[in-house]
């Protein structure tokens, strides 16, 4: 098998002392970046690009060390975002937003921060390693499939993501729909992505740049949660003893073993979504959260949003798998699968490496070294996370009057640092108050954020599809100008089915209750 000798070469490269040290340093930096809210993997890799240039200068013949540093940051950030999501209800990374729904409740309401963290780390490691194996074996064929995805197929994938959100959380599907539409509307603020005409800006220059999802998310989840918990608990802060050790690890392994099938499916789905250009880990985590909920048993589903283990396992495994997957089209085709992959690609250009199919033949050791760094980096990140978790969990014991200003200031910093713009800080505060109120009124917040994140891409694929078909909407059912696309048709049918599912369930439930009423009347 060619793959094994290639991988052996890769491990030999990645385990060279200098390269290995760079991976370790990168993972450590990535964990810190992941833990800091608002400072994401993308901005982290971008900020540290100059540092990696300095590393590359130490060894101009071989830029592998520099790329290992950047890739290490990415692998670390995939894990680090977990911590703030679970302990503070502030997403450290966009792809950790889905962890808020069950991770935080498990840490706070069920009082199991250690288990919540180890569950996320362990499933993240599983996702990364499985994705690394998929990466090694299917690198070339998979990228060829993804390359054939057009607007119709991508639009159907986005629709699937939205469909799984309707009736997410046990609330009313109507409220989910209202929130999805609100998110799409917020995403549309600014310039039209296709024609460039301004819309919904109301003559305000600040609004032309659009409404970013990071300030909105930090507001809805970070500030909103602080306000909600202040009303519930006042100024006394819940102190959660962070028991963490082998017991938590064993318990999380047990939980994971019970859900191995679901985990495997979500990892593979996550990996493939990551491979699709322009998507990355964030939609993958949301989609698999929805999928996990949709396919959970009756009892489990009622537990979603209240600290259900599957609600932590599925999105984290998918996010890590997608993070790994997003590098695949970058390396094989030169098409970055995610914003972070795009920044790493910029790094490759700086060192004179042209991403694309030729990279596999011209720089074999480098490419396979990068692939081996996925295995090594993920393992290092996991070990670091596991041993540092008691430290992370002890943050929860800090008194209210100290931790609250720190969280508020961190939220403001996170919102500000994205674009160095005070407007974003204002957005965070406005959405903080809004999130507090919507939560009270039992509106689900996740659909709003997901729609805001995916809104632009969804519209772009919709309009691109219509442009390619000269305005004929049949293109989304697979009838493209170049012939019938069974993939687009199948994906669209699945998406439509998922949308109708809550309705069908509602009708069935009504019919059942009516039948039961009739039966009880008859027995009387």
């Amino acid at each position, binding site marked *: 098998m060619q793959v094994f000798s290639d991988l052996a070469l890769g491990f030999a490269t990645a385990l060279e002392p200098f390269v290995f040290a760079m991976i370790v340093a990168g993972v450590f930096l990535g964990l810190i970046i992941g833990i*800091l809210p608002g400072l994401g993997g993308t901005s982290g890799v971008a*900020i540290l690009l100059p540092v990696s240039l300095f590393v590359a200068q130490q060894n101009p013949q071989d830029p592998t060390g520099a790329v290992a540093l950047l890739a290490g940051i990415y692998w670390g950030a995939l894990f680090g975002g977990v911590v703030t999501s679970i302990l503070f209800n502030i997403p450290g990374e966009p792809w950790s937003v889905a962890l808020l729904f069950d991770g935080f409740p498990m840490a706070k309401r069920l009082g199991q921060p250690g288990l919540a963290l180890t569950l996320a780390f362990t499933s993240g490691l599983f996702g990364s390693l499985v994705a690394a194996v998929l990466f090694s074996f299917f690198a070339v064929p998979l990228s060829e499939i993804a390359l054939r995805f057009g607007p119709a197929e991508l639009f159907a994938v986005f629709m699937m993501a939205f469909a799984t959100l309707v009736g997410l959380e046990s609330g009313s599907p109507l409220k989910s729909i209202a929130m999805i*539409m609100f998110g799409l509307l917020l995403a*549309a603020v600014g310039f039209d992505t296709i024609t460039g005409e301004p819309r919904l800006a109301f003559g305000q220059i600040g609004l032309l740049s659009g409404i970013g999802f990071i300030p909105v998310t930090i507001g809805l989840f970070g500030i909103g949660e602080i306000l909600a918990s*202040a009303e519930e608990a006042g100024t006394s802060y819940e102190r959660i003893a962070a028991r963490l050790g082998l017991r938590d690890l064993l318990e999380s392994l047990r939980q994971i073993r019970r859900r191995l099938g679901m985990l495997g499916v979500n990892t593979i789905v996550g990996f493939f979504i990551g491979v699709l250009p322009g998507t990355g880990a964030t939609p993958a985590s949301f989609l698999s959260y929805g999928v996990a909920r949709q396919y959970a048993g009756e009892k489990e589903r009622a537990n979603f949003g209240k600290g259900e283990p599957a609600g932590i396992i599925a999105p984290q495994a998918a996010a890590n798998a997608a993070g790994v997957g997003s590098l695949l089209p970058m390396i094989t085709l030169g098409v970055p699968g995610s914003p972070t992959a795009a920044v790493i690609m910029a790094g490759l250009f700086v060192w004179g490496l042209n991403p694309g199919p030729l990279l596999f033949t011209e720089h074999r050791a480098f490419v396979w070294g990068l692939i081996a760094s996925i295995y090594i980096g993920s393992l290092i990140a996991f070990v670091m996370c596991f041993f540092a978790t008691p430290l992370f969990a002890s943050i929860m014991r800090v008194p209210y009057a100290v931790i609250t200003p720190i969280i508020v*200031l961190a939220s403001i910093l996170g919102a500000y640092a994205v674009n160095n713009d005070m407007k974003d800080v204002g957005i965070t505060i406005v959405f903080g108050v809004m999130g507090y109120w919507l939560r009270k009124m039992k509106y689900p917040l996740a659909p709003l954020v997901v729609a805001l994140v995916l809104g632009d891409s969804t519209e772009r694929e919709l309009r691109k599809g219509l442009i390619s078909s000269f305005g004929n909407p049949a293109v989304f059912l697979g009838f493209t100008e170049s012939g019938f696309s069974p993939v687009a048709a199948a994906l669209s049918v699945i998406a439509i089915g998922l949308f109708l599912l809550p309705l069908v369930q509602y009708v069935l439930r009504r019919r059942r209750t009516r039948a039961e009423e009739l039966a009880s009347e008859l027995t009387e």
Partner: protein
Amino acid sequence: MRPYQIATAAVIVLIAAVAMFDTRSGALPDTSGGAPGGLRGGWYPFWSATVMSIAALVIAYRTLVTPQPASGVFKDRQGVVYVVRLVLPMIALVLLMAWPLGFYLSAALYSAWFAFAVGRYRWHWAAAMTVLIPVATYLLMEIAFKTALPRSIFFTMGLPF
């Protein structure tokens, strides 16, 4: 609960109505061939807002016709006080940050408020918190990550913050 639910739905309808009004020119597909793919920029937000307002109207209707829990919206009076005590300083913090105090001075004031008024710590602990939080932020953001935060009006007078 009912009046609050209906008021929330009404605000959602209002937001949607403003958006629909702003994008009304692109509401219908363009058959003249002038727009790429037959859709103008307003189509997508217009119909998102339309669906949003329909959903909110149905929510309001259902709130009227179905029984609502008798419990109030807020936990108790004290709970509202806690929330207001958190929101008002936060708004003050952001306004002062924009002008004239910048990040570091307003963060120090904000931390001091928590230490003295909420935590009621002894003065040396409170003073330590007031100083340490902005200093730690400075080291992290400006030194480690090379991100400049908003400065106060005193910055031009030669002060470092």
